[in-house]
């Protein structure tokens, strides 16, 4: 109790109570306990789960709602769009029939576009995040554990990757990746762009996590328990899996929670720049692209994807913060 600010006694006090609580509880359980007490964290978790559920259940939702994201309602049914292609009804054509209104020109249903769009964005983001997390873990641990030349080399590769102007590079390269994946006169499948996007996002995304984990492993390597394991003749695999990895789950979990929304926004940003998903696949980024063209006449079409993305990213970031707090109560933010 040597600090003048208010935090000190508070921490002191909680540490007193927690030492009592801590009896017989694993760090995981403790984390879960702390997390449950964090109201913001729980709410964000619910929102995030909601988004995932919507993505998974998109066809069910669409079936119950009775629309799909592909039919050109506005064109097939007269009276919904005016001559210029804008919804006739106010607020972007919101009605009991079309909850979030209609897409200008093509007249597709915005609600189902949004619901299916989550699938695209989350699908790409989740796959990219998983791949780059695995890559980051493997490379980070290998570099940190092997040390020496391997570490030096990996370190330089990471520096190099982080020095690339990423957005620019991805835009320039998307056509190349496309052309590598599919011969020029074949029908490009719908998933092609998704694969290209995932590859490009992953190519630049792994480095940050790898660098962080490398640092962690470097400091863990010299810690007593690892030294002890080495002295007792444990195999490198055992040291990595039994000694190192368990201590890395916290930063890995935190980092990947932060990576996922970053990937969702990166995907949307690339679509906005015109190198994202093509037509027919509902996609938030392309909705933005279209929305920024028509916003003067139909601001509603911008607001729905905008707010949806904002809510998702805020919830995910808050969740990341809460997880960090739950793991590491000392950092009070």
């Amino acid at each position, binding site marked *: 109790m040597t600090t003048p600010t208010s935090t000190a006694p508070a921490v002191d006090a909680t540490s007193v109570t927690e030492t009592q609580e801590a009896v017989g509880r694993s760090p995981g359980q403790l984390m879960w306990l702390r997390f449950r007490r964090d109201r913001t964290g729980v709410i964000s978790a619910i929102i995030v789960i909601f988004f995932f559920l919507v993505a998974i259940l998109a066809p069910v939702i669409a079936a119950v709602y009775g629309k799909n994201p592909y039919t050109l309602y506005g064109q097939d049914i007269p009276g919904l769009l005016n*001559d210029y292609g804008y919804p006739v009804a106010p607020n972007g054509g919101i009605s009991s029939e079309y909850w979030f209104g209609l897409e200008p020109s093509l007249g597709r249903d915005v609600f189902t576009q949004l619901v299916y769009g989550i699938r695209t964005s989350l699908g790409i983001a989740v796959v990219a995040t998983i791949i780059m997390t695995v890559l980051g873990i493997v490379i980070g641990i290998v570099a940190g554990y092997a040390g020496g030349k391997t570490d030096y080399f990996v370190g330089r590769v990471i520096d190099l990757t982080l020095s690339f102007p990423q957005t620019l590079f991805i835009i320039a390269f998307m056509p190349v990746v496309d052309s590598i994946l599919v011969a020029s006169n074949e029908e490009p499948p719908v998933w092609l762009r998704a694969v290209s996007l995932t590859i490009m996002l992953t190519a630049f995304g792994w480095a940050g996590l790898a660098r962080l984990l490398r640092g962690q492993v470097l400091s863990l390597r010299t810690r007593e328990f690892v030294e002890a394991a080495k002295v007792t003749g444990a195999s490198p695999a055992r040291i990595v899996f039994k000694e190192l990895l368990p201590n890395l789950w916290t930063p890995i979990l935190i980092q990947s929670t932060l990576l996922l929304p970053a990937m969702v926004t990166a995907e949307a940003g690339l679509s906005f720049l015109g190198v994202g998903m093509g037509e027919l696949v509902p996609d938030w980024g392309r909705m933005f692209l279209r929305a920024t063209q028509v916003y003067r006449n139909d601001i509603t079409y911008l607001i729905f994807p905008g707010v949806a993305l904002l809510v998702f990213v805020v919830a995910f970031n808050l969740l990341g913060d809460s997880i960090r707090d739950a793991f590491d109560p000392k950092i009070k933010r």
Partner: protein
Amino acid sequence: MNIRRRSAFALLAAASMALVGACAPGNAGAPAGAPSAGASSAAPAAAPYKPAVITLGTAEDSKGPAIAPEGVVKGGTVTMIDRDDYAHLDPAQVYVNTDANMGLLLNRGLTGYKRIAKGEYKLVGDLATDAGTPSDGGKTWTFTLKDGVKWQDGAPITSADVKWTIERMFAPFVTFGPSYIQQWLTEEDYKKAYKGPYDGKELDNIETPDDKTIVFKFKTPHADANYAFAMAGYSIVPKAKDTKEKYDQGPVSSGPYIIKSHVVDKSYELVRNPNWDPNTDPIRGAYPDVWKLEFGQEALQITDRLVADSGPDQTAFTFYAAVPPERLQQVLDDPNLADRRMISPSPYGNYYYFNLDRVKDQKVRQAVNFAWPSKQIQQTLGGPNAAALPTTILNENTTVGYEPYDLFEKTTKPEGDIEKAKQLLAESGNPNPTIVYAYNQTPVQEQVTVVIKNALEKAGIKVVAKPLDRKTYYDSISQTKNEFDLYWGGWGADWPSGSTVMPIIFGPVSDGGQNMSHLNTPELSAKMKEISENPDIDAANKAWMALDKEVQEKYTPLVVAENRIATTLHGSKVGGAEIDPQQWVVSPNTIFVKK
């Protein structure tokens, strides 16, 4: 040279083909000046826009100065905003309409179009005292240069410069410009026949008896050569100051302005050419003292700036950046913009070509035509104010003697007749054909594709949509062995004559050529040759129109595509702004800055 920018490559291909192939465009045998003589005869069917009337002017018409628009004020600085900087400044490399429009400020040619009144133009002598004198049945053309025409450095423009201008267009580095004159002078692969004047060799059939007179001797009659000379590509280049390839970086001015500064892709500043005499120029008003050209903004942003009309943007306008569909409602509904709007339909023809080598059953082609969602595409493009729905191959706004017809009931059922299409497909024996639709992968075309796919699939046609890279789109679809069934293509006449359309889009089939439907029957070729050689221009026009319908009835090689309507804005202090109906850009000739 009515070329829309995005189809530049395709049209270049056409140009090259036109001279290689058998059907050189032109109204062979027609009397001089006749091609447009009957322009006043036919009013187009749907006529909110009056088609331009273009006639042949006299020597008197060819005298300067230009006819001033109402309320003209001289002086001031005008700002022009557009998306793209000009690809070429060397006249020999200029083919695209925007480049040509810029050329009007800097370069002069032998002939040009003089604005008499709104929608009324005359072909007159520009540097020449009149629009040229044909002799020897149209094989020989003689032009006399006006007195007092000078280069920007004060040197007189001579017949040697004109000869040099044409000769240098044979040089290997000249690959973008028009090629009619070169072809007519040699009547073979002109690039092989003559390699340009840089190695000292001259072309014998361009004669310069004196400093003022220049005589062209073609191998065959070309009664409309004076129209060809009006193309910006034939604007003159000084023999003494020619820098070959580097001339593309900035021409020596013969026009009213000289380039003071140019930042590539961003801006130009043009100031007056002291050696340009308005009294020699019947075409260019050149009212502002200074032109500022600004590039790099999208049509959307340019429109927003012009709508806002604030501060310096009040004296701004745009040559080419039409109001994009997503702003059209706002712009057309705003009564305050009424006197700042210019509206003009495209002078070009646009088609969705069937690949006749692959879609062999005419019933299928007809079914597609019936099912075609014209109205939905129109809506996607911004509605009736953004696109018209023509039903004929020849453009109603630029075709003399236009006669409407409607084979596929587009006037009554613009949204498509799915039942009729199904019926035709049933008759064809293949009720569920697959159509590979190739499209240019731009955001707009992606949307249009969605609409087309949606409609055709309702009729039972399986649509495989194949996006093509926008840089290689025209290359891909103009391959004769392409793997696609349906694709969009455009074509525009190089001067106002119906004969510059049909013989080209149904001409010889070649890689990179313009016949993208691959429709090429001896019968049709013979018919087109016959019409081309008809000396009676009215009869020929009628015949072209009849052939138009016959082709669609007999072969159905294409779906007539929507025809864009450009709405363009100008600032409140810009006067004299008008869309040139042939070039489909705002002409610089009449622009002035209001006080």
